[in-house]
């Protein structure tokens, strides 16, 4: 009996100790619980800070640039001669190069991407789709520098056999290769949009006697249009921002021309040329880097906002 009592008191003490310990750790826990969300918030703010960092650097340095070159001259000038004795900073040749290369890219990526999406979503059997899709993803995973190499050492020489008069660096070849790079993106986003059209709509049209082709063009594509268009806009945004392919394969001529067999420079390629060269900090040419980057940033931002707006606003809900 006595011994038993003894054990009891001892275990009570132990329990009391445990409780005490628990209380202490609970205090610690409570502090942790309060502290951790704040800590995580700080981490989450890094991405906000990145945006602020991008905008602030671009805006302040662009402002500095516009102290030296007038806004009108920059946006309406068709002559870009940053290195000459009397430098001129017109951005139009760069915008022209950017738009032309993007148009060429979309002429390749648009039709082929959407046809690929139609095939995968409407025609291919499950087994075929399971083989083809990962292979297309492989195409999307190739680094752009490899595409640049491919454009410069393979596509350009090939095109020169077909098109006499094509320069060794030209906008056509990188445009086409850029298009090939964008195909998987348009194909996969459009396919997602098409696959999410409910089967009942397909079956309804088929039951009325439509062929698969008619179902595709009269039912599926109209129903998936918002997704398809937003994939196009994202593709354009990607083409505008693409750097290495055009830098390598289109050279650095700053001509304001519409001749696609010639070398043209895009905004991205200009940034590479100027920052890779030895533009001394504080020179006008150095600040022009930021003005061009700012223009590029605004271009792609607008494209991305449009894409998101289209896919949200015009989405058909089933």
């Amino acid at each position: 009996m006595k011994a038993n009592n003894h054990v009891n008191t001892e275990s009570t003490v132990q329990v009391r100790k445990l409780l005490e310990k628990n209380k202490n750790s609970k205090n610690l826990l409570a502090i942790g619980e309060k502290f951790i969300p704040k800590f995580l918030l700080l981490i989450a703010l890094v991405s906000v800070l990145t945006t602020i960092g991008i905008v602030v650097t671009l805006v302040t340095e662009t402002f500095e640039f516009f102290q030296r070159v007038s806004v009108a001259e920059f946006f309406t000038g068709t002559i870009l001669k940053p290195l000459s004795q009397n430098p001129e900073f017109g951005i139009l040749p760069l915008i022209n190069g950017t738009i032309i290369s993007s148009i060429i890219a979309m002429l390749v990526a648009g039709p082929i991407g959407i046809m690929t999406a139609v095939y995968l979503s409407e025609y291919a059997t499950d087994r075929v789709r399971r083989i083809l899709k990962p292979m297309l993803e492989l195409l999307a995973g190739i680094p752009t520098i490899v595409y640049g190499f491919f454009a410069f050492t393979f596509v350009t020489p090939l095109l020169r056999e077909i098109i006499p008069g094509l320069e060794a660096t030209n906008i056509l070849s990188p445009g086409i290769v850029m298009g090939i790079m964008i195909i998987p993106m348009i194909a996969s986003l459009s396919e997602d949009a098409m696959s999410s059209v409910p089967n009942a709509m397909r079956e309804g049209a088929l039951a009325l006697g439509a062929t698969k082709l008619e179902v595709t063009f009269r039912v599926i594509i109209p129903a998936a249009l918002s997704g398809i268009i937003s994939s196009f806009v994202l593709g354009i945004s990607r083409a505008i921002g693409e750097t290495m392919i055009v830098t390598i394969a289109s050279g650095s001529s700053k001509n304001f021309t519409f001749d696609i067999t010639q070398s043209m420079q895009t905004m991205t390629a200009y940034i590479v040329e100027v920052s890779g060269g030895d533009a001394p900090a504080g020179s006008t040419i150095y600040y022009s880097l930021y003005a061009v980057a700012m223009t590029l940033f605004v271009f792609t931002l607008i494209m991305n906002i449009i894409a998101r707006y289209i896919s949200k606003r015009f989405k058909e809900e089933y």
Partner: protein
Amino acid sequence: MKYIDAEKVKNKMGTRLILNNILKSVFLLATLFGLIVLAVLIIRVLTEGISYIDLNFLTGKLSTNPDRAGIMGAILGTLWLMAVVVPVTMFLGIGTAIYNELYASKGRFQQIIQTNIANLAGVPSIVYGILGMTIFVRALDFGNIVLAGGLTMSLLILPIVIVSSQEAIRAVPQHFSEASYGLGATKWQTVKNIILPAALPGILTGTILALSRAIGETAPLVVLGIPALLLPFPGGIFDKFTVLPMQIYYWTIDSSLVDEYAYLASATIIVLLVMLFLLNSVAIIIRNKFQQRY
């Protein structure tokens, strides 16, 4: 009253079916086009570059002489770059994802963060290069060392890591955390012991795929001013460095001067693609082995 003229329908049927079949083949050809280009690209790179790959090439120093040039420096540079990018993006990416999914109150502020991440994902990589050059290389005066390049790359792939980590966290079923709360666990205990382990395979897969983007990315590093010919091997994150894509870039643009540089570029591309292939295989293995569908 007859709405459908059977004769007319019958007459049209043939052309409609033929058109359907023709376009089916056209669609298939379009699908194969991308794959054919991929095949041509890989075959060409392999035939041009494979004979240049030997132990000397893999372990040698850079050189202007094509027969002696090696890419050990670029391989080490890529690895050191990853040594910065992996911890930084995982820390920032997972932290942000946990905050956005589990702590942030659903409101204006959270929406601002989400929209911001979506917009950041669409910013061209070269703009990140300019940010990195302005902040890390010049303002903080790091110079073009591994740390500056790594931090720039981390910011570049951060949106991808955040989005995929958020998806992985969202895929963990509600009743997991409810059970944990029921046993008396606090929120952080639940996050740390229940949600994160369950979401880890998804987070890792997304992170590895983002990493393969960072390994192949060139444009931001060009803007940071990574030098063309660098002889000493980088030995840490405070050393100057070059990476595989930069080496491909310089050899490609110089191939009009020295023909052999094109083959060296091909050989370097093979090494880069093998690295990417290994990384992606790891991601796929993790996804297949550990990812559970609830």
